[in-house]
């Protein structure tokens, strides 16, 4: 599924979260984004995000991509 922006909802949401952590150093931001997603997202949304991170990494904000990779751990 894609939205009006042409992105999957999970990619769009992850990118929106990531923008709000741009003021933090990349590693710290990735950790905070991953914590936020872990705390608020249903597992199926996280799974979808991980799949998107694999299949279309360029669609993700670099900090969101880093966060997604942390979620696999």
């Amino acid at each position, binding site marked *: *599924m894609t*939205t*009006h*922006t042409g992105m999957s*909802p999970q990619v769009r*949401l992850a990118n*929106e*979260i990531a*923008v*709000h952590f*741009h*003021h933090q150093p990349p590693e710290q931001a990735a950790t905070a984004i991953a914590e*936020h997603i872990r*705390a*608020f*997202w*249903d*597992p*199926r*949304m996280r799974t979808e995000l991980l799949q998107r991170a694999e299949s279309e990494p360029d669609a993700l904000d670099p900090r969101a991509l880093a966060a997604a990779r942390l979620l696999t751990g």
Partner: protein
Amino acid sequence: MSLLKEPDLGTPAKPGPATVTVEVDGHPVAVPEGTSVMRAAALSGIDIPKLCATDSLEAFGSCRLCLVEIDGRRGTPASCTTPVTQGMKVTTQSPKLEKLRQGVMELYISDHPLDCLTCSANGDCELQDMSGVVGLRQVRYGYDGENHLDEKTDSSNPYFDFEASKCIACSRCVRACGEVQGTFALTIEGRGFGSKVSAGGTDFMSSECVSCGACVQACPTATLQEKSVVQLGMPTRSVVTTCAYCGVGCSFKAELRGAELVRMVPYKDGGANEGHSCVKGRFAFGYATHPDRVLTPMVRESITDEWRPVDWETAISYTASKLKDIQTRHGVGAIGGITSSRTTNEEVYVVQKMIRAAFGNNNVDTCARVCHSPTGYGLKQTFGTSAGTQDFRSVAKSDVIMVIGANPTDGHPVFASRMKRRLREGAKLIVVDPRRIDLVRSPHIEAAHHLQLAPGTNVAVVNAMAHVVLTEGLVDRSFVDERCEDFDAWAEFIARPENSPEAVEELTGVPAEELRAAARLYATGGNGAIYYGLGVTEHSQGSTMVMGMANLAMATGNIGRDGVGVNPLRGQNNVQGSCDMGSFPHELPGYRHVSDDVVRGVFENMWGSTLLPEPGLRIPNMFDAAIEGTFRAIFVQGEDIAQSDPNTKHVHAALAAMELVVVQDLFLNETAKFAHVFLPGTSFLEKDGTFTNAERRINRVRPVMAPKTGKHEWEIVAEIAQAMGYPMRYDQPSQIMDEIAALTPTFAGVSFDKLDKLGSVQWPCNDNAPEGTPIMHMDGFVRGKGRFVQTPFVPTRERSTRKFPLILTTGRILSQYNVGAQTRRTGNVAWHPEDVLEIHPHDAEVRGINDGDEVTLASRVGATSLRAVFSDRMPVGVVYTTFHHPVTGANVVTTENSDWATNCPEYKVTAVQVGLKNPPATADVASSEHRLPAMAD
């Protein structure tokens, strides 16, 4: 229960200890300094005759009936306007006083219709009572002279009549309109014998009157009388309960004759409203008995089928078997539900319990998702708990009141009256809003600063205010050092030049000097209080803005005492309670995360069920998952998501994709058009439980009548859970509250018995605070130290473009309530029969639009049509509408954009274009293929 009549002590209470002792007819009584003789007498058990005095209004001294004699003083002063002095000796009855009072009454009665036996106020008329009290036996003056007996009755208001011939010109209505309501719509016109009450020279309906009912409440005769009393007669019994409209949570006496509700009268002992009301709570209760209500359960296989009425057993077993079948085929996580902020805490609690324990997942969310979920997130991050900091009374101690993104006179009118009273006393007002709301300039009130910011720039403005506080040395260092953490990093961030008022002026549209002056006033003007609404939360940075306001309050030390604080004005009657009760997919009751093994273990032990440690789906995620095919069924308790949620086309597609939609509601609403099971719900008049208002006040909701559907909503939910194989049974709603108290530390001391004894309590209510907590964070923040959070401004993705050059923002109006399901079925439609588009004359002119034209409103996701009304309340480039009528479908144009942290929709910023409706609009309002003619709403 008989009719509850609260004592009227004649004049308002004065604060302070009872240090002044006086003697009234030989009875000693001690009262606070400044107390009137009348009130002191009443407190000693002696009622002095009165007509123009009532304890909700300041003394006026016009009727001359309350005269007394005081040892050592000449004459017969009015007891209402005479303050007590130490050692004063008062005589309330003497031959001289008797004669004077009889003379006064004789004059009143000589110009009053003698139709007591057929008068609608017979038995509830103070003029009638006082005639008896003073012993009036004859009236020497006939009706031959000039009188007012032929004055015409004004019946223009839908709810009350003004029978001028019965008016005694006591001014109680005029004073109530000013002092209590703060509208000043009424006046005394003329002088001497020609004096009469006037609604500004016109009839009530055409006047500035807001129909709050304060004048009707204050009137001592039948002059201002509810039409329902005229039609049905005087009520004979009362039930004290709680209003089901906004988050103020007013207490009312539901007054009945037999089983018929005659009127709702605001309850003086109600902690939230203290005897005041608004047009919705006071008068707009007719929806509860409206013929549109569905009282029988119904099912259907397909949404194109006709509804089939069934008995409760069939409806419950059908629902349970369908839900189980879907889980068998699609997995445990394929179903979920939404709780309602219009139902009681107990009803919400059982729905989330059903979902977590019987459905076996955490796919539960609530309508707070689309309004105040950013409040929950933001205040928890900074203060440690997801609730406002103050009680409503606190505003009386505020010196600077900052209203951000809220319109209290329309959305929270009874609290607005408290606020206006304080502003008339001299508190300063700062309004931060793109729209010039009524508070900016209204009778006896004028905002010191109106920061008319561009929609979507809240965070830039609050950061700039904090920048001024920090860089101009206005930080309360002792408060910050003692009570807060992470200040230095925040200070480094907020001091950056890009956060200065000058740097953001072009972006926000707020002149830098005006912003600086507002920031200085908030920081240095004494007790600074922030009140905010959905204009803060319903943005892509809603949560950031909540944290930005919390930062500002902490930096200036405006937290933890009377008169200050950060206070969300909650939209619905129980939105605070629905959040408290564990309606969010990541939190169990009491805002505790589902991943906390210890907390989850407590619930598992009590509920006898294994709970998932992972969050479930939020409402927007449910819609997305439904379209993706992984979410197949939803239980919707009392929320019309098909009308209220953004991007209607997307919501409708999601609902249409589901195998099972179960709606529990009063009416066949827009969502019911997609439903397969309709479970009729109960109105607030039938409910038995509690609501929690915006100040965390837990109020009892008492049944005024038995459920018209034959079952309470909590019973239905428990039976569905049982039919799914999970044992859930309660005999009384008090048992549900007992379970909540046993599981939720902030509710540990709450019980129906305590609420009946104390009237209400504000959580936290536990061993540390057995009678509740009016003001939070007094001795320390809930999380220990208040936490400063950096809040960089990130512009919304929603931008005006050549194709969509205007910005639409939305709000609500006084007479209607949210999607209008209740108020559209009352006399309130007289004030607001349709949603209109407010547009600046300049924006209209360049589009060839005249005032009153039908226009098309289009965004990138949809279009609708409505009537344009010229208004200069918004700046050029911004248009505004309400969302009370499904035919307009304002959410057809709102988008999928949402708050980054909580997914709360960005209702307040939508890029749109407006044009004359020619050719006809392309609106896909409530996509016609799903609009079934058999269903009326």
